């Protein structure tokens, strides 16, 4: 890899330059059949896929992803077993993990980074690791060639956003609302407001996640942002209808985004 050039970011910038809005479905790893869900998302228009590593205490997650995490843990899933399965995924779409910090801290930064790279994962989102605490992990991730996707929150004062963006690799995760993951009836005003503030200070792709709940809201968010994460809406469909539910839904959001270009 060329130093200073992030592989994931390069790829996402190229898609953006081609006029494509970025779609990032999330699925909890370790749910029975989850790899088929990832394949379905990949085949139906995902640009990046976020694999959740279930944690016992997911403080940024609402009821749907909490339930999915618990189900996966009850089924015996561990970070090791999930990454083992991820390694066998033969998808073209870049994969990143979403994990709470203790999942990294426990094995150690360097060891966890090498667990990710050997599973073919290209980045990580760590929702309970704010900028000030991110140094040791980012150093390990950088030297392993992994993108650390930083989160930016609606509560951040203006002077904080450029600092977060400067540390972000791949894309910036623009938190759509004050609250935890889960579907909402409408897109919060904070979603576009924060994306707009971020776009004003960075050229890194800005992707809105948390509370973007359907195709219509995805289109609305993408009027400002470069893309959206679809979390609870994907996980709920996977738990109800399996991989087909994910495939149909991702295709629907993809089509909505493409037809509003």
């Amino acid at each position, binding site marked *: 890899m060329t130093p200073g050039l992030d592989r994931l970011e390069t790829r996402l910038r190229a898609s953006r330059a081609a006029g494509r809005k970025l779609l990032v479905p999330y699925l909890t790893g370790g749910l029975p059949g989850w790899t088929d869900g990832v394949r379905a998302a990949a085949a139906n228009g995902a640009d990046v896929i976020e694999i959740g590593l279930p*944690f*016992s*205490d*997911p*403080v*940024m997650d*609402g009821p749907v992803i*909490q339930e999915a995490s*618990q189900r996966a*843990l009850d089924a015996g899933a*561990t*970070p*090791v077993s999930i990454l083992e399965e991820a390694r066998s995924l033969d998808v073209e779409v870049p994969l990143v993990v979403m994990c709470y*910090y*203790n*999942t990294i*801290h*426990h*094995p150690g930064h360097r060891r966890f980074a090498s667990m990710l790279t050997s599973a073919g994962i290209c980045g990580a989102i760590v*929702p*309970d*690791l*704010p*900028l*000030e*605490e991110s140094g040791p992990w980012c150093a390990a991730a950088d030297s392993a060639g992994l993108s650390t996707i*930083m*989160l*930016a*929150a*609606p*509560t*951040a*004062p203006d002077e*904080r956003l450029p600092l*977060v963006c400067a540390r972000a690799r791949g894309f910036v995760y623009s*938190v759509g609302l*004050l*609250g*935890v993951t889960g579907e909402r009836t409408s897109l919060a005003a904070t979603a576009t407001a924060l994306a707009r503030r971020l776009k004003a200070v960075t050229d890194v792709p800005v992707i809105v996640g948390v509370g973007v709940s359907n195709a219509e809201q995805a289109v609305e968010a993408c009027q400002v942002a470069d893309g959206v994460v679809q979390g609870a809406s994907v996980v709920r469909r996977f738990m109800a209808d399996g991989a087909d539910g994910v495939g149909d839904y991702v295709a629907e959001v993809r089509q909505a985004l493409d037809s509003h270009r």
Partner: protein
Amino acid sequence: MNPTPSIMSPPSSTGRFGEFGGRFVPETLVPACQELESAFTEAWADPIFRAELDSILKEYAGRPSILTECHQLGARLGLRLLLKREDLNHTGSHKINNVLGQTLLAKRMGKKRIVAETGAGQHGVASATAAALMGLECKVYMGAVDVERQALNVFRMKLLGAEVEAVHSGSRTLKDAVNEAMRDWVATVESTHYCLGSVMGPHPYPWMVREFHRVIGREAFEQCLERIGDVPDVVVACVGGGSNALGIFSGFVDSRARLIGVEPAGGAAVGRGQPGVVHGMRSYLMQDEYGQVSEAHSVSAGLDYPGVGPEHSYLASIGRAEYPTVTDAEVIEAFQLMARTEGIIPALECAHAVAWIAREAPGMQGQTILMNLSGRGDKDVGQMMGILG
């Protein structure tokens, strides 16, 4: 010559006690933690704030709490036993010291609402009480298991006008109540103060809560000098998150006294844990080989927690304090022992300290032991009726 700094100094600028502590929270909460840190720093240096808090502690909470010597139990165990009577504070535990400090601060910061987690319900009751006193809205999260075993306190909170929400996720105890309170705070941070109940969580909580409980150690130190003309040989307290323990330790940390924090065998973060990160802090944590947080199991709802405040991890790491464990069976014995010998029904939490003293008495003959009686046992009577039949 500079005096040696206290072992209990303020944490580093990143909230570290040695290698423990920090601020591991979602980005959304970082500004709120920063705001709280500066508001507390400023208030704590403001004589007007301090005077106001002192006066509420005196006129409302009933401080100073007395020191009681246990003549019967002491004679029976072959030692001198002094109790710091935090059970006699308004609302029945030490928790009120911290809550009055935090709610006064919340008002100063212009917050209209507080959220709190609770295990035994003592912190929830104290929060509901202070919210009623200060005209704040209050919501308390409590694990569903604890709602059942501490039903009396649930009713007290509701009487005081608080909303109580039972938490059904995970182990359905204190750990999960903290998760749910944090989720609430992530969504309501602009109007709400999170009134955390122990010396845990993200910076500045471990430091701030310790400062609000220093009053226990300050009073106890003076009372010991007056009563026995010396510091005690041993200072003992139970440890859940560790607030009552740090409160009393603060008076003696720079003295020769041994410091003992007693953990339940089923929730021994220091005893059986490894460094980990949850609830905003890096500290000893009971966890599995993948870093999943273990479920604690203790007869005492207030100590049923797999983590511990970061300053305790620090005190353990430098060898200044010891963290032994006692079993539920020993605690149930000790609960009855104190009731029968002294006419004091201790909370199940501080019955852990009694249990350790009773067990270790043969090695402490003739010594003076100061124990923090952190709360009264009325709330536990229903649960004990079930256990003792």
